[in-house]
């Protein structure tokens, strides 16, 4: 009998807050983190809005609780802050005797420094320390070393579904008995590399994104880090700690259609959601809320929308994309949005899909436009669909409900 998996800790830094508490306050005030680029030195500064974490790297060192030093990418700092918060939130430092893993996700890794110092790498030894911090593993290892996690560590990179896959893997390892606790999530800082890369694909909105809107124009990138602590049932029950949710279903499927596009009938999304639903044992009508991937591109929102209609039929739950709030945090999106979904469970609320105005003619449903509070939420689904067709869906249930 596989062990049940509970969420015991949350850690989040985003464009709307430096920690969980600040994020919750912003969510309740329906604030968005999207604005003009302030910290990243790029020629796209005045053209493209983003949701930046509103702290410089110097300030991030302070938040991470370490002395400023060479060899730390913005990515690593964000990750250390959020993972550290989740770790403390779950009270893990006081609970020895459990096999603990860290499964982190990132795609840009230490690219923010690499793109600055690449010429040095080629010509001199002045910036060698940043050569070692360039890859995806660096931020994961810095987090692991700060928190003293040794039993299992790895890094996943499946574009926008990375952090969701990190949570999925962590749950699988707990269910099979390889680990008792996992800190799972992702971190992604803004870089010229991917900002310009997405711009080359012509899928960035010049205004704040409007997912599921008939006149949507593309993605608004964001940055941040988010981690959840998941534990096996018998460990989660120790110490009289609060349980935030139970992870009851997950599904990973591949679109296998085109590298940068989803199929018109949203096959990958449909299969991922269906797998998660089947595993959860729930009927479609029991899902109270879907935190959609909803990037604001023509392709994703149509494809995801159709997949939702195919799967839920007449019982489409409330749907919203929270990317107009946090931006699209790419490799951190899966865990950022898992946390936002869990907050809907714990706070009995449904988060809004800001900036929505015009109904998409192809869909029969429209997203939630305003924050809804005082509403019973028992089961939530969180979708993360990545470039390359890596689609993952997670289902959380209210703990003790």
């Amino acid at each position, binding site marked *: 009998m596989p062990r049940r998996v509970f969420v015991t800790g949350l850690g989040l830094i985003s464009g709307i807050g430096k920690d969980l508490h600040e994020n919750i306050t912003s969510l309740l005030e329906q604030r968005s983190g999207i604005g003009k680029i302030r910290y990243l030195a790029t020629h796209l500064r005045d053209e493209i809005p983003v949701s930046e974490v509103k702290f410089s790297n110097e300030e991030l060192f302070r938040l991470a609780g370490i002395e400023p030093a060479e060899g730390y990418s913005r990515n690593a700092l964000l990750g250390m802050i959020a993972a550290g918060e989740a770790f403390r939130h779950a009270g893990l430092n006081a609970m020895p005797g459990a096999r603990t893993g860290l499964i982190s996700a990132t795609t840009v890794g230490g690219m923010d420094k690499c793109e600055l110092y690449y010429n040095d790498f080629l010509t001199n030894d002045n910036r060698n320390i940043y050569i070692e911090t360039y890859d995806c593993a660096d931020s994961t290892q810095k987090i692991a070393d700060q928190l003293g996690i040794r039993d299992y560590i790895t890094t996943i990179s499946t574009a926008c579904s990375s952090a969701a896959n990190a949570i999925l893997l962590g749950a699988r390892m707990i269910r099979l008995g390889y680990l008792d606790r996992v800190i799972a999530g992702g971190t992604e800082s803004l870089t010229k590399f991917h900002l310009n890369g997405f711009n*080359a*694909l*012509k899928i960035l909105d010049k205004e704040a994104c409007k997912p599921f809107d008939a006149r949507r124009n593309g993605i608004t990138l964001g940055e941040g880090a988010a981690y959840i602590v998941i534990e096996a049932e018998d460990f989660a029950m120790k110490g009289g700690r609060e349980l935030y949710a139970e992870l009851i279903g997950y599904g990973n499927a591949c679109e296998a259609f*085109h*590298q*940068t*596009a989803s199929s018109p009938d949203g096959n990958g999304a449909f299969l991922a959601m269906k797998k998660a639903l089947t595993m959860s044992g729930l009927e479609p009508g029991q899902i109270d809320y879907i935190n959609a991937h909803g990037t604001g591109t023509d392709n994703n929102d149509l494809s995801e929308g159709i997949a939702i209609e195919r799967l839920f039929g007449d019982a489409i739950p409330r749907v919203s994309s929270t990317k107009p709030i946090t931006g699209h945090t790419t490799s951190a999106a899966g865990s950022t949005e898992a946390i936002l979904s869990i907050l809907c469970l714990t706070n009995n609320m449904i988060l809004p899909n800001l900036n929505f105005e015009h109904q998409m003619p192809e869909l029969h449903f429209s997203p939630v436009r305003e924050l809804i509070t005082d509403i019973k939420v028992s089961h939530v689904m969180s979708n993360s669909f990545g470039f390359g067709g890596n689609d993952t869906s997670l289902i959380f249930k209210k703990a003790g409900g």
Partner: protein
Amino acid sequence: MEELINKLKKEVIEQLNLEDITVDDIDADSPLFGEGLGLDSIDALELIVLLEKNYGLKIEDPKDGKKIFHSIRTMAEYITEHQKA
């Protein structure tokens, strides 16, 4: 115009890495997308980059690309028309 068409053919072959295709294989009026060369949406983006890098012409909306990149000739006509300014 013919000189530009020839130049464009070479540039398209290079930009899109069409290794086994020669200038003579491409007909100036045949559609670039769909049949024939079988180009796709990523190629359309690469052609946008080609126009900007080699001819200084910026296309903001990829949807405009459909008309411009219909064939080598339509590309050449677009360049001739807009470069005069």
